[in-house]
């Protein structure tokens, strides 16, 4: 038998977040915590304002009753092309890979928290405590993902374990990845399909289809972080004039 070796294509992963579809339902938030072995956020952890949510929903109030609106904004690691968290790490625990991902190497991290301090999106989280689960709940831990110990930083990885598994599966089957083969846990769960993940270098991918969208914006674009998470603005006939968008 001759095994044909398929050379992998270069990938650049991006996510599109359609804010107009987001309902704030929190399915992505919990899907992420399930997939990535995020430590349980107890009430005291919330009270200390140290809750870990790799993806979170920010809720904005506008106006006052009765003319009041609530807005929802999902925020996750923006996987910056020009990431403020990377150059400040004294031990190269955070680096940039060739697929556009901003990667955290847990066993290098010494917990200086410089990256957290320098991240304008506040998507990096510090493990203040050794994560503990009741014995029986340890059964649902994902074996593909490291449990981070006390003293290291962690953050959204675009579910890199799913990317790697998808690539290996495609290699084994002797084919290239198709658009949609890989979905991070948040995008897979999202019941309104507000989150779309894919390869921006593939011109036929769903994410590429949003490249020219008129509603497109980046979070804190003025910082020049060259983010790989693209937002599509909320639509509202009652929108007031704004400096953004």
């Amino acid at each position, binding site marked *: 038998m001759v095994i044909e070796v398929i050379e992998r294509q270069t990938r650049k992963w991006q996510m599109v977040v359609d804010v*107009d579809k987001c309902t704030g339902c929190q399915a992505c938030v919990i899907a992420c915590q399930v997939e990535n072995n995020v430590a349980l956020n107890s009430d005291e952890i919330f009270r200390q304002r140290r809750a870990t949510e790799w993806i979170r929903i920010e809720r904005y109030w506008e106006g006052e009753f009765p003319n009041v609106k609530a807005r929802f904004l999902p925020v996750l690691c923006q996987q910056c092309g020009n990431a403020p968290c990377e150059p400040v790490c004294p031990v190269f625990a955070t680096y940039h890979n060739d697929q556009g991902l901003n990667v955290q190497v847990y066993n290098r991290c010494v917990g200086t928290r410089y990256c957290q301090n320098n991240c304008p999106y506040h998507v990096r989280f510090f493990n203040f405590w050794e994560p503990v689960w009741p014995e029986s709940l340890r059964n649902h831990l994902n074996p593909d993902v490291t449990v981070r110990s006390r003293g290291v930083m962690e953050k959204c990885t675009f579910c890199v374990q799913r990317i790697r598994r998808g690539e290996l599966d495609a290699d084994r089957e002797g084919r290239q990845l198709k658009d949609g083969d890989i979905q991070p846990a948040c995008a897979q*769960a999202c019941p309104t399909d507000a989150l779309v993940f894919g390869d921006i270098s593939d011109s036929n991918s769903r994410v590429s289809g949003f490249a020219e969208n008129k509603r497109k914006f980046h979070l804190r674009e003025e910082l020049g972080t060259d983010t790989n998470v693209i937002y599509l603005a909320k639509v509202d006939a009652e929108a007031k004039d704004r400096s953004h968008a």
Partner: protein
Amino acid sequence: MTITRRNFLKWSGIGALGTVVFAGCGIPEEELLVQSPATMPEDMVTGLEAWYATSCAQCNNGEGIIVRIIEGRAIKIEGNPDHPVSKGKTSVRSQAGLQVLYNPDRLTGPMKRTGNRGLGEFEPITWDEALAEVLPKLTGTKSVAMITDPVSGSLGRVIKEFVDRNGTRHMALESMEQTVLTRTVRDMFGQEVMPVFDISNADYVLNFGADFLSTWLSPVQYSRAYGEFRQGHGHRGTLVHIEPRMSMTAANADKWHYVTPGTEGLVALSIAYVLVKDFAQDIDQETLSLMTGGGGVSALASYAPESTVDATGLTPEVIENIAHELTKSEHSLVIGGGAAAAHINGLFNMRAIYSLNLLLGNIGKKGGIRFNPEPADFGIDKRDAVATFQDWKTLRDDLSSGKTDTLLIHGANPAYTLESINFTDGAKNAKTIISFSSFLDESSALADIILPDHTYLESWGDHDPDPGPGYQTVTFQQPVVFPFNQDVGRGTRSFGDVLLDLDSKLGNSPSYSNMKEAVRARATKLYDQNRGSVQSGNFEAFWISVLQRGGWWDEKSSGPNEGPTKPITSAEMAAEYDVPNTTAEYPFHLIPFESNSITDGRGANQPWLQAAPDPLSTATWETWVEINAKKADELGIKEGDEVEIASSTGFINALAYPNPASSPEVLSVPTGLGHKHYGNFEIGPDMFRSLVGKGRGSNVMAIINPVQDKDTGALAWSDTKVNIKKTGKWIRLPKFEGVVPPQYEEGLFPIVKPEH
């Protein structure tokens, strides 16, 4: 040069010098962007994963899920991409299902009560001992009532057989009662099952109180439709929401209108008045004459927007605008439910609201209301056995008087849900209570014997989603892992299996010996039909395929195109309309709302769901009360103040959450907490561990006044008036807001205007 691990270690050897070099001379940018050798090696072999399709039981709508299994352990739950209800999507609740399966609080086998009823003191016994205890208790009883959650499919059939044969009364407990909606659909449209609300294809949706993006009926189905409604088509749909509270659905609407609680029906009739007056040529004439008795617009004159504004708070301009938009839209849809139905006027409100669909001719139309077919062969509709609040009061009295002496409880927690009518006090008089709960909750704590059920990920079943997707759908449920508790002689057993076992031990001959057989019998029925998504010449191949796909559905089947047209009549309108009023003693309307994560309380033992922030308040882990920010200022209440909320039925404590979206006349409180027994285990870092469910927060349903809808006897759970006062304690509200600074300053959130 590349930075490899070896290089790096060499530099580390240089020590402080290395850092100085880094900071001082500046490293060329490309060196900081180099690939790490820490990526996984190309020749790595990943652990094998298997995915099994089954059904989600967290929300009781037969959503198809797939579960990722590695080495016999369930690792992740996702939506079944083939399944017509979930189409690969999940809710926050489905995601947390693994914490039901692996919950530390699960009962590991049968339990026998040792202490007094309700104390929750039990000793472990074996199944043989337990069944030997149970059997004599089931013979020679006066009257047996079986309390379950609404069940469909084969379990529904097994229960039905059992209760019919043994003269047992079956009562299904719906915690946020939907009886009024069920009755409306039956009376007005002649349908036994919920219709399809075709949100995805609608242009203009007018919604009265149905929180369909969060917990109402089939949220995953509706959320998917909502995504398409927003950005799936060439143009964006408009959602207008009328509700006394800003719910999650209201927050996502293009316009939310506050309405005085309980007056939703008046608003609907005002809209009807404008439709008849200004757009007579656009509306259905048959409906019009039925509604007005041939009297035309004058029959509705008392509902002119100018006349209802004082009661409802919605101005004539708003009403006229809505009526105008409804007629202008090619595909309009009116939905009603939730708080709008949970009033003393509930049925009136719902009939008025759904009459708008008849007037607008939305029945059977794309983007309107389409009817679902009845469940496929051998199916049971889960709403068949649903009991009304009136029935529950009667049961409580029967228990107190000894008329009913035996209770079998599965999947429901009446002692918690019916706290407002002290169900527990009635139940304490029962001679025998047998619980089939997997956990010790308020109801199983009353039991004499607990025969713990498997969780849904360990057992067989099938379900008829209601509302379905517009065609016959059966979700199949199979064990995706071996039962977690398998102690010799003890362990858990499937409720259906135990029921069948008991039935045959009582001397009967049930149709099946276990649930798997019952499910296979259903599959045989579907196999014989030779239609739908799975067809085969061989039953075993059919069976395997149905389990692999997670179910069977027939896209070609459909419900009736139209039903009888029975709008609200002038006679009904002539009846007295009680507008719920607050009083000096109880100046606020209490709007309880079903928590987005822990729902009616069943999620309270799952740390993921407790920690999932509420969409609006971002609060977690506690019972909070939403109060208008200005009103709170007036009353000197700030966030985290513990307050006492009292109705004429009782009082609860909650933490204040002032916000700008609450009406000054309303207090709203989420359901689901205040458990005395449920969720009895600790989590958290070692220095501060806390109980997950037990003793946390308050049960808002405990202070609901036992008011009922006049026509159906359903609980009017939105019709309670309360007052509020500080207890003097302050406790920091655990919430996500404030954990990190927001991305946008006030007023800078990016929004664009729709294109026309």
